Structures are given as structure tokens and as C-alpha cells.
């Protein structure tokens, strides 16, 4: 069973509905990004894929009494919280400008999830099916469209250093076949990280187009 017909576009005010998804409600939220949060992903580039550092997003949860949010859960006052979030260097991605949220009637309120997550009911259990490719492409487009700045080289160097540490850890267990496989995979990922970094250094924002 699909819940597509229940999904509503994100809106600043909530509406009452009689049908609901059998999952607990959550608070309204929107994505934000910090300039140090990136992950290596593989995106389609013609018939091939290419490694790209895409932004790792976190959530600004608009729940009354949490992290400077006031008011009520239905009408949160977020001015103070937004200021604090921006002061910490985050970029808030406004859902009224970038259509990325879906709001479902749920148990005890509404369930807000991103539009690439699709709830499915299989035998009474709710499974969240994610369109990972679509979400990845959208995160890439945030950089291509200039909403989020291209990652700083120093930040990427830090991520590469972590990957090197991981390889050292796997290589410390040469007698374990699974560890050797993990080391080989990690080395391939390291190579792709370096390739993505070169792409950023050479083409900048164009690497994301």
C-alpha cells in the first residue's frame, strides 16, 4: 500500500485530515548545512558515475522548548533559534523556496519527511523506501545552484585523513580476509576522494553541474 495520495507539499501551517499514516508524528523541521559536513557519493555523469563530495545535511527541528525555539509545536517561534543556527555558520535551506518536504497526517499530529522518502505499508509494518539517487542529485544541485558553497579544500583534506586512518586500521589485520576486503574497498574510496578533490580544485562549482 502506498501513501502517495496522502502526501501534501510542505506548508508553514498544518491542516487537519481524517486519514493518517500509522506512524508516530514528529515535529516540523527543515534542512540546514554546516560548511564542514560533506560525504563522498557517486552521482550519474552520462552513462558512468563520478565521485562527488555532496553536502551532508542536518535538521533544524522546530519543536517548542528545544534549542531556542519558542511558541507551540503548531506555531513555533523560530527567530531566535534561526539566528543562533546562522551564527554557528549553518545555511538554512528554506522549504518554501526548495520543495523538498512532504507532510503526512500521522498518529498524534503530522509526520514530516523529505520527498525522496516514501512510506510503504507491508503487512501492517511501515517501511521507509528512499530514493537515494534522487536525494543525492538534489544535494549536488544545491552546490551547482550556489545555495551551498563548494567545499573548502581543508575540510576535504580532513575527510581524506580519516579515510587513511580507516585503511591503517583494516591493514592491521592481514590475517582476516574480510578486513583485507574492507581495506581494498577503503583504498578505492580514498582514490575517489582524491579524484573528487581534484575536480573541485580544477573546476570549482562547475564540477557539480
Amino acid at each position, binding site marked *: 500500500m502506498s501513501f502517495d495520495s496522502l502526501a501534501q507539499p510542505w506548508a508553514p501551517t498544518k491542516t487537519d485530515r481524517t486519514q493518517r499514516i500509522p506512524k508516530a508524528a*514528529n*515535529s516540523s*523541521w527543515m534542512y*540546514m548545512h*554546516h560548511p*564542514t*559536513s560533506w*560525504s563522498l557519493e557517486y552521482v550519474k555523469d552520462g552513462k558512468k558515475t563520478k565521485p562527488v563530495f555532496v553536502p*551532508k545535511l*542536518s*535538521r*533544524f*527541528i522546530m*519543536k*517548542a*522548548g*528545544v*534549542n*531556542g*525555539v*519558542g*511558541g*507551540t509545536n503548531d506555531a513555533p*517561534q523560530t527567530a*531566535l533559534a534561526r539566528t*543562533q543556527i546562522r551564527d*554557528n555558520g*549553518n545555511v538554512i535551506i528554506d522549504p518554501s523556496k526548495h520543495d523538498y518536504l512532504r507532510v503526512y497526517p500521522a498518529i498524534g499530529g503530522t*509526520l514530516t*519527511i*523529505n520527498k525522496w*522518502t516514501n*512510506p510503504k505499508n507491508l503487512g501492517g509494518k511501515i517501511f*521507509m523506501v*528512499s530514493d*537515494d539517487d534522487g536525494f543525492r542529485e538534489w544535494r549536488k544541485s544545491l552546490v551547482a545552484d550556489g545555495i551551498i558553497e563548494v567545499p573548502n579544500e581543508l575540510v576535504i583534506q580532513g575527510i581524506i585523513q580519516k579515510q587513511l586512518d580507516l585503511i591503517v586500521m583494516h591493514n592491521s*589485520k592481514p590475517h*582476516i580476509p*574480510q*578486513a583485507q576486503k574492507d581495506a581494498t574497498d577503503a583504498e578505492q574510496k580514498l582514490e575517489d576522494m582524491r579524484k573528487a578533490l581534484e575536480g573541485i580544485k580544477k573546476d570549482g562549482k562547475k564540477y557539480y553541474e
Partner: protein
Amino acid sequence: MANNLYSTMGDVRMTSVISSEINLLLKDTANLRNTGYMQYIGSINGSGTDSVKVRKIGLMGRDNFESRTEVQAASETSITDDSVTLQVARYSLMYNISDLLNLTATNAQFEPDPFALAASIAESYNALFADLTAAAAAGVTSFAGTSGATMSVSALFEGLYDLEQADSFRGAPGPFYACFHPKSLTELQASLRSEQNNIISQMADTERFVGAKGLGYMGKLFGIDIYRSSYVESDGTDYENWIADGGAMGFVDGVPQIMGAAEVMEMDKVVVEVQREGAQALTSVIGHAYLSVGVIDSNRITRILAVD
């Protein structure tokens, strides 16, 4: 001649009797309020505001000395400061019970009479506290683990390393704690069972940690106090578990000073009042709490993602 059967004597037999005891359904009221890991910033009562600014300052060794020649003048050092503001919100919980429901009550422990409801509301405050704490942690920018992947020993270590390197490698001082959604916690237990590294797989802590667990505190693993909470947030794809240092999060509250209620019961931070609607033969039991939970130092906390 007809037999006298149970099935035909509906006027002298009942369908069922009610049990003399009422059993509780499952609940999760475990939270971090009294663990020592949450900083109590204060109460707004009598303060003239609903918000509290948590002040931070870079003293007691944050700045290093500078070298100087014999007569070179010392240069002034600016003190680093910062703040986070928490704004208290009102939360309420109300039950209405009719006189008929109340007068037909037995003497069982959890009959929904006004006094049992007041005690229940006080317990619900613990659930609210856990809920707001999880929401505050979910707003943290940094995270370890991989979106869409199950919780693992590696992800826990990744989170721990983030804290140990926090704030340009100054590192959070600890002690550390982590809070996991029950699903993520079982995944961590499963990951421990298949751990290849002898240092970990042969630890006494590992043996204890893979055992059956109840609610709240789960035990210590790698020097981290591990808690479990069903209120850990999910973005639809991942549960937003977290690992933190003792000074990462704090809370502000206010205790209602109720005027004019017929009966008031003070239950810790919650105040419960009883309101009577005589015309409808209804009694309302209403609890109010004023609370705010927030991250007060984002260098001391990081999320650990694990698949929903």
C-alpha cells in the same frame, strides 16, 4: 427435557469479570535529567523573562602564552566568549473523567481516579523531558556513521573520535555518554557479536553489553555510559542517536504558580490541578510544565546515524 447450559443462561452469567489488578502497558520514561550529564541551567520563576542566556567564556587555560624578548611589550589577548539562549515553552496534559467512571472504580492500584492521573502526569513529564532532549540532540550539525547503514561498533568509535578531536583538536574532556534508539541499540549489540578485533570481542564490557537489556541505562562500553530511549528522533531515513560529553546539553524550566484552582498537587516540576465541570459531571485533571532543553556546546556532542 432441555439441559441447563452456561451458553443459554445469559441472565445469570456474565460474559467476563474484570481482573482485580490493572496491568500497565509499556512506557518509556527513562531520561537523562538526573544522570549528571545534563546541566540544570536554572528556573525562570521570578526572573522576569521566559528565556535564559547560557554564558560561555574561554578561560582557565584556553589561551596560551606568547613568547617575548627581554623588553618587548606584552600584547593584549581577547577573551573568547559565546552564548546560547534557551526559551521555555508550555506543555500540558489533561485527562477528563466522568463521575460514573469514577464511582464504578474498583480498589485496584491503577484505576483512573484523579490521584492516579496526577501521579501519571508526573511520570509523563519524564517522557516529555526525554522527547525534548532527543529533539535537541537531533539538531546538532556534526554526525558520525553512514546514512542508511545499521548501527555498528565502527560508527560508535567514529562518534567518539569526533569528540576526542572536538574544537580544533582540543577535545572534549568527558566523561562521555551515548543515547541510542532501541533499534540502533540492538544493531550495536549485533555488531559486537560479530566483532573481529580481539581487543573488543574479548572485553568483559562486551560480554556484559550483548546481554538482555531493560529500560534507560544500558551499561558502559569503551568508557561510554550508554542509554536507550524510544524518543530518539528520526528524519525518516535514519535514527539520530548521539554521543556527548557531560557539558553538551542543558535545560531550563519553570514551575507553575497556580492561582484560583480548587485543588493543586505539586508533583516535582509539574503542577497538577483539578477542575470540576459540575453540569457535565466531569472532573478534569490538568498538568502543566514549562521546559526548554538545548545544546549549549555543540563541540561536545555529535550524532551517530543509523538506519530507521
